[in-house]
């Protein structure tokens, strides 16, 4: 996923639909960036394909140069009807937080998976 100038750290690994996913993007090496973004998304995985099935707009965490060791907090809200995490014999439906640095050359990206539980029974 490109050079690892950033990594994503989540405060908690398990959430319910509608909850807020909190964490931070940690910069591992100083980079002259235009912007730093983060988004939460749901991805379908088959043996040979991976497709995002949500279209949640990203948030801008920072602009300009990112110093090594700095952290940028985020709070991203899961949809109320978020599909629960699912693993089957040939596929998976997973949620992840993706962060990426818009910089000259190849953008740096990082991701962290999270578990989304099924809605509580009414």
């Amino acid at each position: 996923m490109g050079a690892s100038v950033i990594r994503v750290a989540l405060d908690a690994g398990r959430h319910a639909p509608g909850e807020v996913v909190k964490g931070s993007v940690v910069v591992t090496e100083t980079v002259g960036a235009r912007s730093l973004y983060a988004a939460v998304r749901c991805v379908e995985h088959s043996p040979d394909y991976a497709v995002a099935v949500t279209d949640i707009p990203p948030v801008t965490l920072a602009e300009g140069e990112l110093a090594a060791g700095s952290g940028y907090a985020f709070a991203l809200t899961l949809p109320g009807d978020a599909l629960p995490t699912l693993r089957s014999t040939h596929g998976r439906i997973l949620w992840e937080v993706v962060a990426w640095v818009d910089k000259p050359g190849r953008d740096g990206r990082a991701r962290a998976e999270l578990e989304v539980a099924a809605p509580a029974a009414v």
Partner: protein
Amino acid sequence: MSEGPTTGAARARAAHESRSRRQFVFAVVLATIGFFVLVVFGVGGLLVGAAGVMTFAIVIGGAFLATAWSLYRKARPTEVPARVRVEPADGVRGGRVEVIVEPTAAAGLGTIEIELICIERYAVRERHDGDWVRRTREARELEVRQVMEGGGGVAAFDIPATAPYSHQGDVLSYEWRVEVTQPRRRRLDARQVVPLWVRP
């Protein structure tokens, strides 16, 4: 192109259906020959006034058509003579659904099989003529079978809490359904399929 069923019972059923499809094709071929004989020799005999030729056409053509009809009756798909419904119509993982079978024929149903099935469909990349192409394969992620004797009744199924939920995606889909099958000897089994939506 899709991969076929993966369990033993499903493979046996698929083999039976394959045999029935071959019977159906054979019936069509025999019917074609029968009509050809009837038309060519029957009309020809009529035109030249040859009663023997006409008789040949009727007997041989008729035999082909009768055999074709018999094969067609064996090979055609038929529905189970019963009203089948699932309650509730949309299930939930960790919950229970009931399959209610009410015979509609006076003769009853005899022994029937009821299956709760989850089919997983997933996209793969395959080589074809030197190019990579996308194909969809399918496999039964879950199947639970019950046998019902004496014609009609209620069969209850528990949906595992960890089973897939119904989903229609771009590269991954899960379809749930109930299949009721009435096994028949030397004929295609009668079958009825009721779709089911399973919520997360």
